[in-house]
């Protein structure tokens, strides 16, 4: 469902930014990375140079390295050719679905991975992109329908989804602030790049309060980030639970 809705919005935004159908679909099939695609719409609309776009894409998608490293132990028995294709489908959603499914059943499930990554994500994402960019072309006055606000709202929503601790929060706030100041002093393109590079550097100055905030993916300490809502993995970091007063001691 989220892939459909979000893919449709991406299609509308791409159309609004001047992407043709072929260009918008090329992004969805070849890149297949929602946040980077939305960011590319903003970069292109702001006039960011291609080398900078590629650099920022590399930084933005570097988190996938952590996902693939976390899934590697589960999928080591899958033939390498199939793993190579699986890698292209490794998005935030595919990782979250796969890792929670594998943990739930206690083993790797290749068919489950394909279903989550391809059937539930890749196909809906691309069909919805196509629908969005085609329907976007039929809208005579996009601003009247508020389509211009979809892009910044989607960006801030995605940022919220990636904030798992105070370091990420500081990086986002500082990155946004730097970007606006530099954009006003120079250009939006330079502002975005500057904020994206220096925001994380400032965020690193904040001490991590608890290990769960910065623990590597694939570790128990980080697992809560990727579980389904309302579930929880107990770790050594969890505070010990005291029995209620009056509870008799266990035999």
């Amino acid at each position: 469902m989220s892939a459909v809705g979000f893919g449709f919005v991406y299609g509308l935004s791409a159309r609004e930014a001047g992407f043709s159908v072929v260009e918008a679909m090329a992004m969805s099939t070849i890149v297949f990375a929602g946040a980077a695609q939305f960011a590319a719409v903003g970069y292109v609309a702001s006039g960011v140079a291609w080398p900078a776009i590629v650099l920022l894409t590399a930084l933005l998608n570097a988190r996938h390295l952590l996902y693939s490293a976390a899934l590697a132990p589960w999928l080591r028995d899958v033939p390498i050719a199939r793993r190579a294709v699986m890698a292209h489908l490794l998005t935030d959603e595919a990782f979250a679905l796969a890792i929670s499914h594998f943990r739930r059943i206690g083993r790797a499930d290749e068919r489950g991975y394909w279903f989550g990554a391809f059937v539930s994500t890749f196909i809906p994402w691309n069909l919805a992109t196509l629908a969005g960019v085609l329907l976007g072309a039929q809208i005579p006055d996009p601003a009247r329908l508020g389509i211009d606000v979809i892009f910044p709202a989607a960006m801030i929503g995605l940022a919220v989804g990636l904030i798992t601790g105070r370091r990420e929060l500081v990086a986002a706030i500082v990155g946004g602030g730097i970007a606006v100041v530099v954009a006003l002093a120079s250009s939006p393109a330079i502002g975005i790049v500057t904020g994206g590079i220096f925001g994380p550097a400032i965020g690193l100055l904040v001490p991590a309060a608890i290990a769960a905030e910065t623990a590597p993916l694939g570790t128990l300490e980080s697992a809560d980030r990727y579980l389904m809502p309302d579930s929880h993995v107990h770790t050594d970091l969890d505070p010990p639970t005291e029995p209620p007063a009056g509870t008799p001691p266990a035999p």
Partner: protein
Amino acid sequence: MTTDLVLLAVLMFAVTYPTRALGLLTPGLDRLPKAAFDYLQLVGPAVLAALAAVSVMVVVDDDDVPAFHVGIEWVAVLACLAIVAWRRNLFLGLVVAVAIVVIAREVGLAALPA
């Protein structure tokens, strides 16, 4: 129909695919230096926030001079932020953001963007 950005998509793929494949295809390469790992963890929120902030707070006039902008878009984006933080539902946040802007513009509380 233009196809210029297809090349950009290919270049973006060229830097995205290795990050997805390296761990899966090269067992053992699953440990980054801690400093690099920590930095990369923070890039996503910073880049996305920078894009959102510049998009709603900076406008560029016909002479390419950037200027600070205050408008209904701020309210819409903050509403989306609050909904995503509260409900973890991005699509709902987008719907509310768009609704705020549409209503404000229809009733004359906000002007259409230049």
